[in-house]
């Protein structure tokens, strides 16, 4: 975002309001429906189009248009469905055998076989591959070919989230082509088996794609409808908005609440607010690393903070449509995540004051609240804390600086958010914040032990129960106060039929013109 974003949006707000009458008079149709070309814009471009070699959301979108994974997670039901693999079974807790689909071809016409799967997984596990997000692949030990259409994936240890990872950040590459052109060649002219094929990768400008005519029938992704898809990089938020208003682009996202409200009044533009997996939360120095006598070590102080914050009011007035209040230390729809039976803290400032007095702070105390995004949310938290006597001083830092301070044990109270990498499993949340690693500020060995057991238990019911125990312990002790899920605002041409999912992954292969 530009450094001058605040002033600009105010100005654009006024100007866009002035623009409305003229826009409504304009009869110019949005040209892109006529061209059967969907143009979507975002602010950044992936450093490398190869999905294993970038960690940007824009890269993930392209990855799901151009490549396919072995398994598909149905975004509606959450069920795992066959995609490039038609069936799979666990030989033992660390060996998964998959039967591969026949008759699938890559964009260059070469057939998809077991060699491609074995090559892809073994390649991304080598240090030379320099995979950007190593946790996406490091749970695997390797892959072996059984026959042309059967492979076995070996795991380093029992890993119940394996199917989730196989349906997300592990696309299959064409072995022969990749070996021929290398990573540099592949990132300039990449091919996959997905519903769209890349026709141009333009550094700084974006990516052009068209419908792959040889795409296999009966895919769980459905038959792609739109002929051409173009991704355009437009760094400036107001410029993206102007492009959408003039029909230069058909789809934008991450629109701030104020701009979204203005765009709702623009004809030919549809605004959609949808929930995402990102959860905002407060984290406390329960381990007492900032000072031996920090109030944050006291269970009652942390509980008091939980009672002091009116989360439903924050959702209603600040965060906006699509957000939900969270009660557990994970995103509620993740597998293993539950708030059933987990202690809840309703807004009750009197109780907060009483707990503070019981904890030995009848007159409250001074503390620092560290935050790195959505300053207004952090300021609201400061306001609620002051109302019960906790004089919090806001320290607003860049993400890297805040994390450095937190990891060095200098942060008493922190406003954090976590998107779980879109992995639909509670381990992707709790594993980061509670397993006595650097980001764990409570460092409770009991929580860690429960989570470790949960992460590696393959029996679904037993696993759920373990997470429930861990999440209840976290809530009871007030180690982490979940606030709410984040919404994302999408704005797009009214000619376009588009639906959003919580994993913040726009699936343009399901979009179509009205």
């Amino acid at each position: 975002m530009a450094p001058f974003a605040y002033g600009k949006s105010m100005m654009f707000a006024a100007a866009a309001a002035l623009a409305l009458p003229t826009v409504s008079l304009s009869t110019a149709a949005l040209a892109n429906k006529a061209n059967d070309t969907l143009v979507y814009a975002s602010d950044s471009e992936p450093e490398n189009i190869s999905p294993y070699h970038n960690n940007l959301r824009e890269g993930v979108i392209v990855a799901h248009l151009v490549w396919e994974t072995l398994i598909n997670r149905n975004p509606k039901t959450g069920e795992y469905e066959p995609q490039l693999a038609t069936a799979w079974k666990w030989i033992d807790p660390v060996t998964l055998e998959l039967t591969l689909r026949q008759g699938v071809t890559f964009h260059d016409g070469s057939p998809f076989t077991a060699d491609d799967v074995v090559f892809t997984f073994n390649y991304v596990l080598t240090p030379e591959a320099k995979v950007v997000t190593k946790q996406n692949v490091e749970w695997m030990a390797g892959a072996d070919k059984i026959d042309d259409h059967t492979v076995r994936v070996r795991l380093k240890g029992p890993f119940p989230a394996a199917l989730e990872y196989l349906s997300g950040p592990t696309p299959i590459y064409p072995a022969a082509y990749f070996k021929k052109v290398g990573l540099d060649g592949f990132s300039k002219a990449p091919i996959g088996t997905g519903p769209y094929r890349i026709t141009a990768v333009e550094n700084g400008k974006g990516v052009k794609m068209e419908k792959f005519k040889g795409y296999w029938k009966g895919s769980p992704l459905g038959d792609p409808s739109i002929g051409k898809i173009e991704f355009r990089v437009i760094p400036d938020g107001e410029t993206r908005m102007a492009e959408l208003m003039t029909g230069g682009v058909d789809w934008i996202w991450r629109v701030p609440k104020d701009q979204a409200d203005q765009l709702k009044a623009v004809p030919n533009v549809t605004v959609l607010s949808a929930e995402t997996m990102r959860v905002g939360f407060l984290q406390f120095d329960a381990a007492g690393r900032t000072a031996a006598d920090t109030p944050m070590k006291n269970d009652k102080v942390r509980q008091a903070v939980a009672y002091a914050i009116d989360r439903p009011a924050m959702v209603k007035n600040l965060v906006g449509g699509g957000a939900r209040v969270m009660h557990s230390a994970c995103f509620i729809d993740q597998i293993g995540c539950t708030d059933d039976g987990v202690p809840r803290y309703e807004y009750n400032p009197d109780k907060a004051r009483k707990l503070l007095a019981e904890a030995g702070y009848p007159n409250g105390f001074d503390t620092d609240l560290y935050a790195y995004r959505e300053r207004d949310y952090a300021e609201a938290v400061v306001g609620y804390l002051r109302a019960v006597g906790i004089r919090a001083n806001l320290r607003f830092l860049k993400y890297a600086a805040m994390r450095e301070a937190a990891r060095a044990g200098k942060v008493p109270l922190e406003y954090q958010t976590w998107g779980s990498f879109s992995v639909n499993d509670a381990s992707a949340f709790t594993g980061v914040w509670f397993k006595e690693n650097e980001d764990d500020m409570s460092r409770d060995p009991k929580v860690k032990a429960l989570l470790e057991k949960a992460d590696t238990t393959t029996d679904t019911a037993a696993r759920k129960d373990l997470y429930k125990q861990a999440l209840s312990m976290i809530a009871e002790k007030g180690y982490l106060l979940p606030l709410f899920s984040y919404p994302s605002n999408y704005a797009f041409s009214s000619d376009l039929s588009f639906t959003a999912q919580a994993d913040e992954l726009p699936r343009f292969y399901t979009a179509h013109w009205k």
Partner: protein
Amino acid sequence: MLAFLLRRLAVALSVVLTVSVIAFLLLHLSGDLATDLAGPEASPEQVARVRVEYGLDQPLMVQYGQWLAGAARFDFGRSFYFRESVASLLGDRIPITLKLGAIALGLALAVAIPLGALAAVKRGSWFDRAALAFCALGQAVPTFWLGLTLIIIFAVNLRWLPVSGNATWSHYVLPSVALGWYAIPAVMRLTRNGMLDVMASDYIRTARAKGLRPHTVIFKHALRNAVVPVVALAAVQFGFMLGGSIVVEAVFSLQGLGQLAWEAIARKDFPVVQAIVMLLATIYILLTFLADLLNAWLDPRIRVA
């Protein structure tokens, strides 16, 4: 003249070196590069790996020395972000920025010189005052604001021109106006003052006395002499424009050097930022140096200074 030239060259080179040191230090002071590069969701081991991989575990002096040794051979290293050498990345983007800068400067001169000349001829009139007010406004308006206002008027409301991109010549119109706007006041004032000086000189009086038509006197005799210092100023303004295009390119989504700089800063793509800062500083210093030479050649009094 040679001593003057060498002295100026030495100053220019030391400025380039100073700029490189400052840029280097500022980038390193802005937080831990390895943490940023590894991304928000990276583990400590990944951060440590990145630190070694990019040589960020070396002492600052060593890192700077290595960078400088490479830069002297036009090897600016590889981008942290793109899988490309910085040199080829810059090579792709420079033409767009130069094109934008040249059009913007052309526009600015085409507006500012006639305006300045007319203001001088009609000194004290409403036109002169209006031109000076326009100058003050031109200098006060922030570039991003002007850019967005132009987009709202000409792209969103009137729909005459495209909002962003660089596909056709029409995409360059709005960004060139936004960028050139800033150069107009300085050029106009200099033209106006130069014209006022020249108009008061003896040879203009002679020309008038000969009975030459006012047009001939103003354009053939006066303006030609008055715009000489403008040439030097234009060189400096061109340097300013290359720097100013960072904002304009971001607003209009032009894939030039400015946008690359902006993205590189946001991504902490240190080799790219450093190379762009050096490139822009060198161009700017080179232009200033040329302007100095031009002035010295025109006016011998400067040479002894």
